[in-house]
Each structure stands twice: as structure tokens, then as C-alpha cells.
């Protein structure tokens, strides 16, 4: 499931752009690959992320994976509710499972991310 209106990265994050703010999370492919997610470590509000930089950790029963910032920007909100109940990322990766909202350093960068079609091709679906 890959909503058309979102953008995607090759490290399996989705991005929703709303004016100057970008929200991101993990794709359905990522949550399926991970299996049951039992732990989420999110960065602090106010932190400045670089594109491709580490921005949190997601752990499934079997292993830990880094979450990568799809764009550069300053964090304006993180999903504390998801950190409390990580399974929501499996259940609703594009909705209640959102992870970080940031104020983009350069909104033009968002256009360079993958479309849903390109992402689907990337993961071989």
C-alpha cells in the first residue's frame, strides 16, 4: 500500500509535504520487513536533521534498524504516542504511525524524492 500523494525514499521512509512542514514515517514495505515493532526511539524536538542523517531507531523483535531523515530541516514535532505504543507503526504506518514533523530547510528538495510508482518499482512490487 503506497499512497500516491506521498513521496518515498530508498531507505523506506514516506514523506507528506504540507507547506513548509514535512511529515515522515516508515512505509508499509518497511513495517512488513521489520515484523512486530517493539521499540521506537525518536529524536528530540528542536534538533536539526540533515538529509540522510540518522533520525531515530526502530526495533523489531529480531533486530534494530536506523530511521533516516528524508530531508534536512528542524524537528517541530515527534509522535510520542507511537513511541509509547510502537505497534501502531505496523498497524497504521501512514496515519497514526507517523514519526517526525520537520520544517524543511529547502522545500525544493522534496520534489527530488521518489514517487509512489518509482518506490514500488524500487522494492520490486
Amino acid at each position: 500500500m503506497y499512497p500516491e500523494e506521498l513521496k518515498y525514499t530508498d531507505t523506506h521512509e514516506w514523506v507528506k509535504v504540507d507547506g513548509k512542514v514535512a511529515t515522515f514515517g516508515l512505509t508499509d514495505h518497511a513495517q512488513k520487513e521489520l515484523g512486530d515493532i517493539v521499540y521506537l526511539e525518536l529524536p528530540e524536538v528542536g534538533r536539526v536533521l540533515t538529509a540522510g542523517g540518522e533520525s531515530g531507531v526502530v526495533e523489531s523483535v529480531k533486530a534494530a534498524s536506523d530511521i533516516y531523515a528524508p530531508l534536512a530541516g528542524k524537528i517541530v514535532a515527534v509522535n510520542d504516542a507511537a513511541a509509547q505504543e510502537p505497534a501502531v507503526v505496523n498497524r497504521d504506518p501512514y496515519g497514526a504511525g507517523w514519526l517526525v514533523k520537520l520544517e524543511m530547510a529547502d522545500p525544493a528538495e522534496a520534489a527530488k524524492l521518489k514517487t509512489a510508482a518509482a518506490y514500488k518499482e524500487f522494492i520490486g512490487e
Partner: protein
Amino acid sequence: MAQAVKLPLYDRHVALGAKMVEFAGFWMPVQYTGIIDEHVTCRETAGIFDLSHMGEFVVAGKGAGKALNKLVTNDVEKLAPGKALYTPICMPTAGIVDDILVYRDAEEEYMAVVNASNVKKDWEWLGARLGKGLSFENLSPSTVLVAVQGPQSEAIMSEAVGEDLGDLRYYEHRVAEIEETQVRLSRTGYTGEDGFEVYVDGSRGNEVWDVLYELTTGVGGVAVGLGARDTLRLEMKYCLYGNDIDETTTPLEAGIGWTVKMDKAEFVGKEALEKQKKEGLKRKLAGFVMVDQAIPRHGFDISDINGAKIGRVTSGSYSPSLKENIGLAYLDRPHDALGTEILVAVRSKPRLARVVDTPFLKLLGES
């Protein structure tokens, strides 16, 4: 690089949508419906497992028991036919070559069940030391092993074999019939639940799996993969070779000293174990629960509350039954004492944990 081997039940797992991974050179199902769901369902109802990757050797002939007894720490000559036991195979240093199950079938006939990752190593180790004059056969390639574990397992298995299995006791085994096929049936398992393990010739593996799968799912059970197998055994503090025990750890340090029968005249590792017992252990495998919310993993360093290094995590995971993050580690004495606070380095940050009594499932009974 050799390709991973597809075991006889491979197609069954793929048809069920299992996520397959390479493990010890075999394609194995790591999960079907999800690790947590499989784990919880196994403890509450039942789970069916394909364990055909494990190895089975038969040792037979005059003197088989005596010869085998020199290579394991537990006493197989005291094992009655129809019974099985758990034992490490030790090196002269007392380090562990593998941990195995030994079944006695007759006066001079035994079957050893070994870890998949150690089949070649154990075959060579035992083969070189059992001596000539004995029959030593590797049945691994032609054996399918299916386990059914959980509170409903006796009902499931009794139905499958058409006998009341109420009188088959823990660590006992017998010949039985499933789907007109002769099988070895034992009341053994690696989950901490009541359960059975079925050994059958590979040519009838699918038929036996199909019957057991239908009966298991019929009562609400599920197929369980290696992922949940690991969380189930961890909650019981059952050692996993390669993680918690290896050639650098002794059975005494690992807390399985009960498998070492010092009154046996001789066995490989006896002198080293006697010496270690006399001198006292310097470190011990201990269970701990995370206080800070982080998941401990194999290899993470552990320090005491002041930052001095005292050990390393051997196994760790989220525990679906406790809903806590738990782990095992060799801790330098006296830091293995119950209640000791320790710091586990998770991604370079020290996270607080506490040494607890094991098996971890015990903790559920207290509050």
C-alpha cells in the same frame, strides 16, 4: 559460497506465507503471522514448528553407552530405554562443543539430536572419539522433525496418534503412528510449555506435517517460526549454542551444572570442571530485565553502576509474555547476584537493567 538447502517441508512454509531466512545453511521460516502472535498463541493454545534443520545421529553396538558416556557430561548409561536426557559435549578445557539431547532406544542403541549449526562439527568430534567397532550413522538428511508445543499439544498429539498420551511423561519417548507412518514421538521441547517432538522419515514429512498442522490450527494454534522459537526459549533461560554457550564457556558458568555427573569415572572435561568447581566460578550466566526502555542484544557490553566493565550480553530481546525487554549475560561475580543494577551499552548509551531470577516466566507468577 554454497547455496542454502531447502528442507522437505519448505513448500509448506512458503504456501503459508512464511518469511524464509538462511539459518545454518538451511532455508527456515523465521515467522508466519508475526513473532509476537506466534509466541503468545503457542503459550496460550499451541504452536507447530518445523525443526528439520537439526541433526540426528545413531550410535549403536557393543559398548555404545560406555563410549558415549566418555564424551558427554551427563550419564547416558543410567538412562533407561524409552527415556532421553539433555547434556553438553565438553572439550578437555570444559568449553562446550554443543548441547544435545540423547535418546536411549535399547541397551546399546542411542540417538543424539544436535544443533543444526553444529552437525558437521559434532559428526567429526564424536566420530573421531567413539572408537571403532560401533555403528555411527547420520540420519539428519533423511529426517523431518516437527514439534507441537503448548497447552493443547497433548490433545492434538493424542488425536494424531490415536492414543491417550497422558502416560507419556516429560523426556520419555516411544514409537507411534501418524497417518499410517511410524514416527518417534517424545515429550520434549524448547519452549517451556507441555509439548511433543515427532521424528519421521523425510519421505513422509509432508503427510505428518499436514495432519499435525490441521489439528493444531483446528484448536486455534498456529505455525511458529524461528523468531518466536527464540523468544520462547529465552523466557525459559534455555541456552542457545553460539549465543549463550560455546567453546569458551563451561556448563558450570552457564548454569547447567546439573547436567554434569561428576561421579562418572571419566569423561572429556571432567578434570577441568572439577578444578573450576573447586576454585569457584569467576563469572555466571545471569538473567536481567531492562529498567530503561531499550532492547539488549548479543555482544552489547555491560558495566557495573560505576562504569567498570563486568560482562557482555549473550542473548536479548523483547519478551512477549512479560512485555519487558530481557536478556542473558555472563557477569563477573559478584555482579550476578539477584537485584544487582547493571548498565547495558545500547548504541553506546548506558541503559539501566537489573539482575533477576530465571526462568523469566517465573516473574509472571509474582507481583
